[in-house]
């Protein structure tokens, strides 16, 4: 492994910026975030980077590494060609705050537009419920989400078309799916998904699923079943026929 590597880091804020090269010693076993920390401690103390657990569990350090959306804490330098400068950029879909940090607050606001969990009455007089492991597991997959927003970052509807006011993106479709498929939930979100959240904008390119660090099968297990529910409720030809009659 190389002993020195160059990191070409985007520095700037909402008004603009430019790439800047930092050469730093690298050692076996380092991840990208280690290199960024080293640069920050020794060369650029005001370099802005958002991170927290550094173990792939909190989803804070999302960035684009050589053009690929990734968690910096889980990307080992040994997986990157260090003969070339390593290009580090903030996520493209969200407004830049500074350097590698973006303003992801839209995700938190958009989540509020999804109707919250509403359980059925308890199954037992002591106020508890009974659920089978198999029913729970389906939703547990979605609840693995660490809200890194990498799926939002690659979604064309958000990244290219900026439909932030009309579409909630893969992360929040997964959130809606977790609620809709929750064994205890009684709320109906299907009309909202169609009319307010425009699930129809998703054309299932599976980009989101491919970047998910938790390997959640976003499109096949969450979005497509939700689309099917929308179709069942609003576009079933037999139902439409009955409605006319």
């Amino acid at each position: 492994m190389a002993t020195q590597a160059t990191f070409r880091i985007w520095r700037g804020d909402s008004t603009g910026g430019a790439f800047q090269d930092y050469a730093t010693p690298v050692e076996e076993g380092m991840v990208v975030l280690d290199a960024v920390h080293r640069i920050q401690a020794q060369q650029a103390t005001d370099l802005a980077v958002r991170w927290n657990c550094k173990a792939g569990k909190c989803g804070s350090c999302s960035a684009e590494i050589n053009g690929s959306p990734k968690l910096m804490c889980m990307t080992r330098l040994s997986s990157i060609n260090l003969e070339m400068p390593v290009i580090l950029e903030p996520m493209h879909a969200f407004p830049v705050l500074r350097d590698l940090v973006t303003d992801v607050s839209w995700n938190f606001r958009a989540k509020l537009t999804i109707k919250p969990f509403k359980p059925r009455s308890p199954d037992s007089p002591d106020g508890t419920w009974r659920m089978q492991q198999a029913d729970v597991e389906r939703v547990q997959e979605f609840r693995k989400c660490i809200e890194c927003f990498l799926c939002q970052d690659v979604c064309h509807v958000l990244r290219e078309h900026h439909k932030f006011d009309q579409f909630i993106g893969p992360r929040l479709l997964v959130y809606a799916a977790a609620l809709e498929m929750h064994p205890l939930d009684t709320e109906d979100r299907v009309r909202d998904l169609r009319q307010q959240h425009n699930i129809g904008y998703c054309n299932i390119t599976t980009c989101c699923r491919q970047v998910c660090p938790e390997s959640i099968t976003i499109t096949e297990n969450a979005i497509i079943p939700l689309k099917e529910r929308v179709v069942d409720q609003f576009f079933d030809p037999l139902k439409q026929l009955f409605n006319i009659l």
Partner: protein
Amino acid sequence: MPEFQRFSYDVLVIGAGGAGLRAAIEAAASGAKVGVVCKSLLGKAHTVMAEGGIAAALANVDDRDNWRVHFSDTMRGGQYLNNWRMAELHAKEAPECVRELEAWGALFDRTKDGKILQRNFGGHRYPRLAHVGDRTGLEMIRTLQDHGIHAGMEVHMECTVLRLLLDAGRIAGACGYDREKGRFYLWQARAVVVATGGIGRAFKVTSNSWEYTGDGLALAYRAGAELQDMEFVQFHPTGMVWPISVRGILVTEGVRGEGGVLRNSEGRRFMFDDIPDLYKEQTADTEEEGWRYTQGDKNARRPPELLTRDHVARCINREVKAGRGSPHGGVFLDISWIKKQIPKSEEYIRRKLPSMYHQFKQLADLDITQEPMEVGPTTHYEMGGIRVDGDSQMSRVPGLFAAGEAAAGLHGANRLGGNSLSDLLVFGRRAGHFAAEFAKTSGVTTIDEQELQATAAAALAPFDRGSSGENPYQIQYDLQEAMQELVGIVRTEKEMQQALDAIAQFVARAERIGVVGNREYNNGWHTAVDVASLMIVSEAITRAALLRRESRGAQFREDFPGKDAEWGKYNIVVSRGADGAMQVEKIALPPMPDELKAVIEEMK
């Protein structure tokens, strides 16, 4: 003069991990106007790292379990230095808190008959931990977050609190700044709940995230609250030491349970060299007997690798200090050796330890079925914290509450696994409730504008010094080195005195910290602020550890290696003297009521 953005609440919660969110939800449910301030984005707090589960005597798996057993398990684990009232309330209320989470959407693993499944854990007599695979903390924080955002609370994300504000000795709010732009904020409040978690970042090797710099403890200390049990820092014996990027990440005890052995650089199983008398009868004499134990032979005794965590951590430390460590400053934990014992060992290891296999493969490029791991102790949890009333969670400062890892009392000298997540729920709820009650009955406070301006000026001073000042990252690094070396797992008076001298030097250096750039998301500036908190908690840990001249629970004094019954009667309390210097004193434990004594006797 810096401008302050002004907000006014009945209850201000500092910290948005499990305890903070639970407190905010409860306060909002009582009708209080609630603000939450957190250093990270919502849902990223250290609670997400918790794996094992939430300890609660639901008795879903073993119907012999009840609050009395849980209470006595907790007290025994804490070597009876626990606040007995908190241990009692915790054991009684944890089941209800777990059921509450389910009502808010949490999806725990299930028993065959559809109830919440519970698993075994060290120190708990019966299977007691409600869990979701090995990501229970994430489930908990997401449930509280998604419930909380609809419960009526204003959240100020990515803000650092600089100071708690008082009015005639009573809490009046807090001031700080946002990381995004560096704008100053005043959060006026009738009651404040500190739920800022622990102090792991005072040490070089830790399983804790960057936020764990003891801010809440330092804020409360400066505001006049007492800190208690600070000497009890839990070091888990096996954390990863290599590669550097993952130093401190936990390696589960399960590796040793499945037959993994600890060796030094000479290949020696050093755990056989030092078996405490108390455990001699229960510990294997030979490697062969130890192996049989791990394979379920009821007639065999346990291998010395499975002695208590504090002891194993100390033995590892001794080997490293004696120069018999692994290349990266740990020792070797080897599970691959079992191929000599059983066929298809690779498959067996992958099946029994899937996440460990994955963790080392992905992060260390190491196949644990073929090679030994390098492990060493890692700073994991601070049992101590802000001294509070057991029922209300209020500190001695009127209107200032604390909950979760930031509060002391529940765990005494040593925490049982699983008791932290239930701690967050039970005492987060209590703190939120009593803070809202306090706010209802207390009048308006006034803010000292001069104090606000002085706080802002002090926070901005490092910018004036710029690049000519001390590098904040370097001070933090040096502090972590010193604490790791001098106030770690094995403590002596001499080394801790050195630590105090070193901390005094860091304090002096911190006065000269300089930061470059502007106030927008400037990590250097944030580190400068964090370092101030770390120095206070580091001094508190050191002074408390110096005063306790015995070894008990997580504290091991090489110069006082035995447990001393006399010391078992006291907690150590740290507070800020009138002259600004740190005071340390021992305070007698409150007497336990007879009915609780009877419970402990009954469960012996």
